[in-house]
C-alpha cells in the first residue's frame, strides 16, 4: 500500500473518547435491564397493542406517497444547504459576485419548489 501522509486533526481523538463513553453507557444500561427486570411471557401479553381488540394482519402497511415526496425534497434541499456552507465561510472574500452567484443558485431551487407547491404536491388534507 502506498504510504499516505495521515494528518488528522487531533481534536477528533476527543470526539472518539466521547463516542466511547456514550457507547459504554448505552451498553451498560442494556446489560442492566437484561438482568434487572422481571420476565413474563404469554401469548396474549406478547401481542402488539391495538386498543385491546384483535390485531388485524401485519402492521407494516403501505402509507401515503407524500411522505416519500417529503423525503426526496429533503435530500435535494439538504444538498443545497451543504453547498451553502463553503460559500458562507468565504462570503466576505467572495463579495457581491458571490452573492449574485448564490442568488442564482437558490433562485433555481425556489423556482423548482414553486412548481412543486403549484402542482399541489405538498398539500396535506
Amino acid at each position: 500500500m502506498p504510504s499516505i501522509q495521515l494528518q488528522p486533526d487531533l481534536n477528533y481523538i476527543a470526539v472518539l473518547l466521547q463516542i466511547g463513553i456514550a457507547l459504554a453507557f448505552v451498553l451498560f444500561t442494556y446489560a442492566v435491564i437484561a438482568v434487572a427486570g422481571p420476565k413474563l411471557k404469554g401469548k396474549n401479553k406478547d401481542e402488539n397493542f391495538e386498543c385491546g381488540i384483535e390485531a388485524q394482519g401485519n402492521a407494516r402497511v403501505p402509507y401515503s406517497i407524500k411522505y416519500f415526496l417529503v423525503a426526496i425534497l429533503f435530500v435535494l434541499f439538504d444538498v443545497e444547504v451543504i453547498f451553502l456552507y463553503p460559500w458562507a465561510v468565504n462570503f466576505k472574500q467572495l463579495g457581491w459576485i458571490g452573492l449574485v452567484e448564490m442568488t442564482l443558485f437558490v433562485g433555481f431551487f425556489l423556482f423548482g419548489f414553486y412548481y412543486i407547491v403549484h402542482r399541489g404536491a405538498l398539500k396535506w388534507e
Partner: protein
Amino acid sequence: MEILFYLLAIVAIASALGVVLSKNPVYSVLSLICTFFAIAAQYILLNAQFLAAVHIIVYAGAIMVLFLFVIMLLNLNILVETQRFTTARLTAAFTGGLLCLVLIAALRSAGDIKAANPANAKIGLIENLGMTLFNQYLLPFEVSSLLFLAAMVGAVVLAKKEIA
C-alpha cells in the same frame, strides 16, 4: 494511525459485504450506513473534514433516510423470493467480473500512486474548498442547480398519480 486506517478499512469492507449478503433490506440499509461512517472516518484521517461531514449529512443522514422510507413504503418486510433466476445471477457475476477487470487494469496503468503532498494537507478544509468551488468550478456548480430542478420535477411526476 496506520492501524486505524486498516481497522476502518476492515469495518468498511465487512459492512459493505453485509449490504449485499443480508436478506432483510432494512439491515442492508443499516450496513450501508455503517460503511459510510467508516469512509467518513477515513476522510478525517486525511484531514478532509468537510468531506467527512458532507458524507455523513448527505449520504448517511439524508439519502439513507429516503431509502428507508422507500423500503417501508414498499412493505418489503415480507421476504420476496430471494432465489432469483440463475441466468440473472450469471449475468450479474459476469458484469461484476468485467467491472473488476477494468478497475484492476486502471490501477495497474496508474503506476505508482504518489504520497499525498504534506504541504497540501489543508486542501480538504472548508475555506480552501469553498474558494476553489466558487472560483474555478463555478459553472459546474451553477449547472448542478438545473439537475436539482429536474429532480424536483421528476419527484412531482412520480407522486402525481396519487395527488390527481
